[in-house]
């Protein structure tokens, strides 16, 4: 445990927004290195940092406290900070296909990475990953949503594709069959809301997350993708994307 009160200040850019981070551990900066962090002697704006309470909760859950922990915990604070810029960090894999972004959303362990891996194996020249676990989504004034890379790539570290406009969201679940069903924004609301990173402490933040969720759902269609196995469920996902691109929703 680092008990030093010294903080390490860096400025960086995420989805076109300039952010200032205050780290407890200098090594935390390496996890965000791809976002051109520049050290600052003092914060030029309200910095994003992890509170002692968050570290304490993290330790109470059986985790260690180190630079990687700080990097992980910064995710929800960064997401909340981005709310005021109509952005959030969203728990999903963001793939790029035919110049559009498609999200595969679902809780940890449900199979997002398996779907991505299968897409990359079967359509290596068509599919690229914008972010494997937690892209930044921007809700634009014209009602569209852009999906951007973020430092939180997941354990596979998948990233590299450029930002793209969001075309659809697949909410993934495991099941006894393979199926894909379009669902209404109302039906998708609970699942989508749980994907928006926040700490759930403040009523205003909870409300802001709700407003962003609504804008995301109103921007594109959603499907419930039930997967018993790959590649069959992945083929359903691919066919659905193809239908949308060729015939519309």
């Amino acid at each position, binding site marked *: 445990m680092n008990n030093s009160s010294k903080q390490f200040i860096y400025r960086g850019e995420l989805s076109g927004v300039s952010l200032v981070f205050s780290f407890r551990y200098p090594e935390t900066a390496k996890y965000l290195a791809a976002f051109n962090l520049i050290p600052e002697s003092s914060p030029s704006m309200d910095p994003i940092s992890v509170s002692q309470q968050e570290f304490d909760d993290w330790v109470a859950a059986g985790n260690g406290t180190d630079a990687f922990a700080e990097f992980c915990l910064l995710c929800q604070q960064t997401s909340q900070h981005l709310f005021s810029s109509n952005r959030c960090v969203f728990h999903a894999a963001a793939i790029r296909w035919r110049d559009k972004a498609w999200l595969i959303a679902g809780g940890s362990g449900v199979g997002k990475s398996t779907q991505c891996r299968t897409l990359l194996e079967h359509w290596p020249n068509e599919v690229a990953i914008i972010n494997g676990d937690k892209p930044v989504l921007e809700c634009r004034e014209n009602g569209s949503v852009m999906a951007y890379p973020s430092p939180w790539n997941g354990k596979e570290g998948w990233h590299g594709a450029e930002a793209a406009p969001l075309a659809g969201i697949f909410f993934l679940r495991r099941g006894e069959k393979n199926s894909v069903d379009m669902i209404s924004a109302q039906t998708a*609301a*609970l699942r989508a809301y*749980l994907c928006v990173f926040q700490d759930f*402490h403040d009523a205003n933040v*909870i409300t802001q997350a709700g407003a962003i969720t*609504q804008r995301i759902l109103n921007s594109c269609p959603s499907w419930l993708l039930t997967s018993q196995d790959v590649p069959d469920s992945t083929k359903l996902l691919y066919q659905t994307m193809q239908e949308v691109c060729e015939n519309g929703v």
Partner: protein
Amino acid sequence: MAYKARPGFVLLNICDAHLLVATRPLWAEFPRIRPLPNAWAVCWTLMEKGNTDQDVINMFMRLFNAPEAAMHKRFDPIFSGLAEEGYLIPVEEDAP
């Protein structure tokens, strides 16, 4: 027994889905999010403004020009449901 809304929840309407969200301190006792049917959400909205269940019944009597017994029959199951799950607390419990 009169009930009022327990503090610490935020009711959201996302694309016509009503989601009652628990703030983090309440996660040990409540699910993070409790989806609510429309009528439940209306009752909660009125009660989180400080009205008791009887206040809400009185409002509905005026709104629908309906007898009190009919309003109790229609809405008491909602109040009971919310109370059983802990979202409503007895007014007396909070009195000094």
